[in-house]
Structure formats: C-alpha cells, structure tokens
C-alpha cells in the first residue's frame, strides 16, 4: 500500500502534530479538567493511526518501529507499577501518594503522583493501542515480515 494522495498526506502530517499536542494536553491536565491518561493515550494512538492510513504501513514503520512501540508499552506499564512501588518506599504503603503536598491547587503542578500516573498510563495506552491496530492491519496482508518473532 503506497498511501493516499499528496493532499491527504500533507494535511495528515500537519494534523498529526495537532492531534499529538491535543493528546499531550489531555494527559497533562487530566487532574484539573476532564480527560486523563486513558483518553489522552487513545488520542496519541489515533494520531499515528491517521499517519498509517495516509502514508501506508511502511512509512510508519520508519517513524515508530514496532519494536520501539512494544518497548514503550512495557515501559509505560512498568513505570505505573514503579509509581506504586515508590509509594511503598517513601510512604510505607503501596500506592501512597507521597507527593500530594507539593504544588498549588488548581495549578499544573499539584496532586502529587496523579499527573505522573497519567503520563505513564498515557504512554502505555497510546503505545499498546497503536500496536494492536498495527498488528491487526498487517496480519497476513504484507509479506515483509514485520511481525516480531
């Protein structure tokens, strides 16, 4: 698949940046406004799905290789688990919000570990959903052997 026309490609490459910015906004402000790690992560994934639809799968492979994607998936999940374990280390209890007293209410830096968890979850959800859509769409349709193992 070679992708779509030049118009679609150009627009997609600009819109991609907007979508990614929007996703990052949704993730970062998840503790103040509606949204959060999950919604933002799905938006991040959909930006790459858009690029994949416009340019074809090979292009996306160069931009975001599948091995990197699955590593991000694992690392995001692990980072979230680490936040829980750090709560154990610093606060004595699993998932203790050990930073909750820092920052100012209604400001970006507030709510302790909640924004950090949002970032970890956003990374994990974005990477994993893009991964699943990618492998679903490549299954038995290309012969280049992009599947791992």
């Amino acid at each position, binding site marked *: 698949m070679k992708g779509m026309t030049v118009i679609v490609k150009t627009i997609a490459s600009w819109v991609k940046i907007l979508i990614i910015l929007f996703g990052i906004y949704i993730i970062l402000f998840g503790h103040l406004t509606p949204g959060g790690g999950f919604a933002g992560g799905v938006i991040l994934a959909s930006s790459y799905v858009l690029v994949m639809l416009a340019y074809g799968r090979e292009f996306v492979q160069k931009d975001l290789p599948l091995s990197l994607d699955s590593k991000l998936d694992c690392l995001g999940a692990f980072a979230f688990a680490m936040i829980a374990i750090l709560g154990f280390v610093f606060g004595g209890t699993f998932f203790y919000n050990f930073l909750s007293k820092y920052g100012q*209410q209604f400001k970006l830096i507030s709510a302790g570990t909640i924004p950090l968890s949002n970032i970890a979850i956003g990374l994990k959800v974005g990477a994993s959903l893009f991964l699943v859509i990618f492998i679903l769409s490549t299954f038995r349709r290309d012969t280049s052997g992009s*599947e791992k193992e």
Partner: protein
Amino acid sequence: MVVFYILLVFIIIGAIIAVETKNLLSAIICIGAIGFGASLMFLFLRAPDIAITQIVVEVLGLIILIRATISRDLTFISGDKEFFGTVVSVVIIFMIFLFGIRVFDTVPEFGEPVFAQTSGAASQTYLSEGLEETGAANIVSSVILDFRAYDTLGEATVLFTSIIGATVILRKKSRKSLGDLDE
C-alpha cells in the same frame, strides 16, 4: 429528562438494527452510532470524563471491528436460522426481562443517587475531602488515580494482557518444527 428517553430509544433502535441486519458492515456502523449515542448520554449525565473516553475508545474500537470485516468476501450473512432454538431463547430472555424489571424498584429512583441517601458513603467523602487530600480538582481523576489507584493498575494490566494476547494469537508461526526441538 426527555433527552435521556430520546437517546435511550435511539440507542435501542440502533442495537436492534445492529443485531438483526444481514450486512456485517452496517451492523458495525450501528455499533458506532450506539457508541456516539452513549457518549452523548454520558455528557448529559454529567460525566464528561467518560464521554471523552467513550468517544475516543469508540473510534478505535470501530477501526478494530471494521478490520474484522473489511476486505473479506463475507460481509453478508447467509444461511437459514434454526427457528425453534431462536423462539425458545427469545422466550427465556423475555421471561428473565419480565422478572428482572422488578429489580429496579429496589435501587433509588433515577435522579436521586444512592450516595446522597446513605450516610457515610465513600462518594461524599471523595467530594468533600478529595481536593484537600489529593490536590486534584477533577474528583474522578483523584478517585481513579489515588483513592482507587489499585483498580487502575489492574485496568492497565488488563490492556497489557490483551495486547500481549493479541500479538500471541496473531503471530506467524506458532510451533517450531521438530528439528528445532533437539537443539
């Protein structure tokens, strides 16, 4: 109040079409319509977090579902149904429905949530203490990532499990040939 009925009826009609249509692609489009109806419904039910999540999840879910049917020769379902089995299951399901409908008398009326009537309910504390204790202005966010963060760990794990499962199910070669075994 009327808007809820309109949306619910819209969702139910969408569901009936999705269930009964012979064309798989239009069934999936109907699922999309149901999802957007549900998303609007969440918005009117004052759950903006859920509405956002529902709408983005809906988009990706539709892509996944369409992947299952597109470029397949089989978008139409053919074949006759077993009449007897269908009738029996419809009757059983209808009876469960008639029995189950009485159940909703025991939960509080629509519009009068249970947490406002129960003294010492957790939700009251979330609303009154949430900002003070966690510092997050979005109470739902403070519930999912602080009070009940352990659930969210489970949820992230569910997603991780399903992705690993999907890669495992869709891998190219599942068994090694016998020669590889003796290494």
